[in-house]
């Protein structure tokens, strides 16, 4: 199939353009020779089906980062019919280099100057025709964020695919594409030409403003990056956002849960009546309820990514990296680790994948060790439920706040303990983009992509998990579900010597065991164990069985031990080290057990 690749620096709106071109029907694709997944989507142009691939954002085709190596390997392995080079129009003073490198490789290309609106606002004027003439490549100005210029890009792509790279007017079929040969050698040989060529292009086609014009960014930074006000403002903003997510998300989740439950009872149950009882139970209480738990959970995840998308697109997230870097540096981490940990509060998996931007192995591993302590929304789900069941509203809120604090303390402690083992010397140079107003379609499509990613990663583990919970509770055949004679009851008894000292009884043990697969299953598991599907009744049943110190100990353990199998899997695949994965799991279990022990025994001693 014909392939178009999107290539560009970070922060150029490449992914926005990708979504605009494809209508965000993207999927994750595996490419030969690449260890990472790339987003790709099919595109129909002039009756031809093409695939559009979104390559990772890179600064330099000869760069040393993993992303840059990925792009090189891609170009060397895949014949591309067209490269869409996306540049930030307001930063042509440094970004034209990348287009020149593509030109040096003689790849068929179209240059897209994105963020044309911003360039105009900052006083950068571009003569795209002159640029196109000098560069020998079609140049299109656009603003992907607002969808302006999209038609022109599509037109240029169409034309470029139909004609050969020569400039004559005869319509020849494009040459059959071949993978790039000797990429690095060819670029190295002509490296010295880049600088003068870029200067000549700028001279011929771009007028830069004499003075920086973005007064808004200047004024906002004076407050938001203020040495004293900066951090308190940032944490206040985050607290507000999290409040907002619960205030909207939790009722939606409850409503959706009730709806799915009703569908199960009213629609699916009658359909299943001809089946044997065991199979009925398996399908309805195991599979349907499990899927329902996960599905009901999606709105909160979506809201989180929506909110974080707004913060990120506004440019504030990079400021967070600036504000926190001095502190993180003392933990052996950097500002990016902080931002990733923050993303981890939604879901740990994309946060761990995000460590790919780090080149230094020590820094990357230490970040991967710290991120799983971020209180992700799956765990929050368990805590909100438990807090409501055991404490009055105000105390419950305090417990949740305490757990957030604990999450932070665990991350800091972990970094301090392990920074000696994973030393790093990675330079930190990041762009601070101007503040921008995020647009709704852009933020929505990003959140949608994240939710899909979450679903992709979690569903197999979660479905496997809920089914396993159900089976363990109902086997051997004929036992009272979840009783001490069932497989899960026996497991609980077996682990009692370890978990008794921290106040985890056999019932809770089973829930924790399955929480290892995914925290989304914990509540569903408890529902099966206590035989109560209704949340209020379930809360009462647990409260009757367990004291509040036991409940808090359970929450602490849930917070600190391995988040889920998806996280373990992604740590394994990203670190490519079984030993490190074992360390991550082992350390989190040890920390969880010790913390719960100190808390539970402490409360007992005190009274």
């Amino acid at each position, binding site marked *: 199939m014909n392939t178009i690749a999107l290539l560009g620096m970070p922060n150029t709106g490449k992914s926005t353009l990708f979504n605009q071109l494809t209508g965000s029907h993207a999927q994750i694709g595996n490419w030969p020779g690449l260890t990472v997944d790339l987003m790709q989507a099919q595109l129909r142009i002039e009756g031809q089906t093409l695939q559009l691939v979104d390559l990772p954002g890179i600064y*330099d085709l000869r*760069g040393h980062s993993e992303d840059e190596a990925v792009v090189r390997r891609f170009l060397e392995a895949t014949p591309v019919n067209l490269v869409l080079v996306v540049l930030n129009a307001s930063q042509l*003073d440094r970004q034209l280099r990348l287009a020149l490198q593509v030109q040096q490789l003689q790849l068929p290309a179209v240059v897209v100057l994105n963020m044309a609106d911003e360039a105009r606002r900052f006083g950068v004027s571009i003569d795209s025709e002159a640029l196109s003439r000098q560069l020998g490549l079609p140049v299109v100005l656009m603003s992907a964020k607002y969808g302006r210029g999209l038609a022109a890009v599509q037109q240029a792509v169409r034309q470029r695919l139909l004609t050969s790279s020569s400039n004559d007017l005869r319509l020849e079929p494009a040459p059959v594409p071949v993978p790039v040969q000797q990429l690095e050698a060819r670029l190295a040989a002509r490296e010295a030409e880049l600088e003068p060529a870029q200067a000549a292009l700028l001279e011929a086609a771009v007028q830069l403003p004499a003075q920086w014009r973005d007064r808004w960014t200047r004024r906002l930074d004076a407050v938001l*990056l203020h040495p004293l006000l900066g951090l308190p403002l940032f944490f206040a903003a985050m607290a507000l956002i999290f409040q907002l997510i619960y205030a909207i998300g939790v009722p939606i989740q409850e409503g959706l849960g009730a709806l799915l439950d009703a569908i199960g009872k009213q629609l699916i149950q009658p359909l299943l009546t001809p089946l044997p009882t065991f199979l009925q139970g398996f399908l309805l209480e195991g599979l349907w309820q499990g899927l329902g738990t996960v599905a009901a959970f999606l709105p909160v995840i979506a809201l989180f990514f929506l909110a974080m998308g707004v913060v990120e697109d506004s440019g504030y997230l990079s400021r967070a990296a*600036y504000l926190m*870097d*001095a502190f993180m*540096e003392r933990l052996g981490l950097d500002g990016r680790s902080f931002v990733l940990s923050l993303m981890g509060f939604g879901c740990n998996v994309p946060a761990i994948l995000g460590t790919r931007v780090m*080149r230094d192995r020590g820094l990357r591993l230490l970040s991967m060790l710290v991120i799983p302590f971020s209180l992700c929304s799956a765990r929050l789900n368990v805590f909100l439920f438990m807090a409501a069941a055991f404490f009055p509203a105000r105390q419950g809120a305090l417990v949740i706040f305490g757990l957030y604090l604990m999450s932070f303390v665990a991350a800091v402690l972990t970094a301090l303990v392990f920074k000696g083992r994973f030393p790093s010397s990675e*330079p930190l140079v990041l762009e601070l983009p101007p503040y921008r107003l995020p647009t709704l379609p852009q933020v929505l499509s990003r959140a949608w992509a994240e939710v899909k990613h979450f679903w992709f990663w979690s569903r197999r583990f979660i479905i496997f998990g809920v089914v396993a919970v159900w089976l363990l509770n109902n086997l051997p055949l004929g036992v009272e579900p979840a009783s001490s004679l069932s497989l899960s009851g026996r497991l609980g008894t077996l682990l009692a010597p370890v978990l008794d000292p921290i106040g985890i009884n056999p019932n809770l043990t089973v829930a924790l065991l399955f929480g290892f697969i995914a925290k989304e299953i914990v509540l569903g598991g408890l529902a099966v164990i206590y035989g109560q599907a209704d949340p209020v009744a379930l809360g009462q049943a647990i409260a009757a069985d367990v004291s509040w110190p036991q409940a808090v100990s359970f929450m602490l353990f849930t917070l600190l031990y391995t988040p889920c199998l998806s996280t373990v899997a992604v740590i394994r695949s990203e670190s490519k080290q079984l030993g490190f994965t074992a360390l991550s799991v082992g350390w989190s279990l040890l920390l969880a057990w010790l913390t719960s022990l100190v808390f539970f025994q402490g409360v007992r001693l005190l009274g």
Partner: protein
Amino acid sequence: MRTDRPLTDLRPGATAVVASLTADPGLRQRLEALGLRPGQPVQMLRRGWWSGPLHVRVGMTELMMRRRDAACVALAA
């Protein structure tokens, strides 16, 4: 002529011209890609507290960089 001074010495609000980069090839490449090339004027916008990162502007790009890395950027006197 005075000797070159590092970017870390630049006071907030001041502007100077990059003279040379003494970074290792990886960092050098990244700095150049971000616009910090010899001959380019660079302005110090602010310096983080507690030896925090620097906030600088070069060309049309604003950057944050750690002082250790900024020390590799020599400014023309």
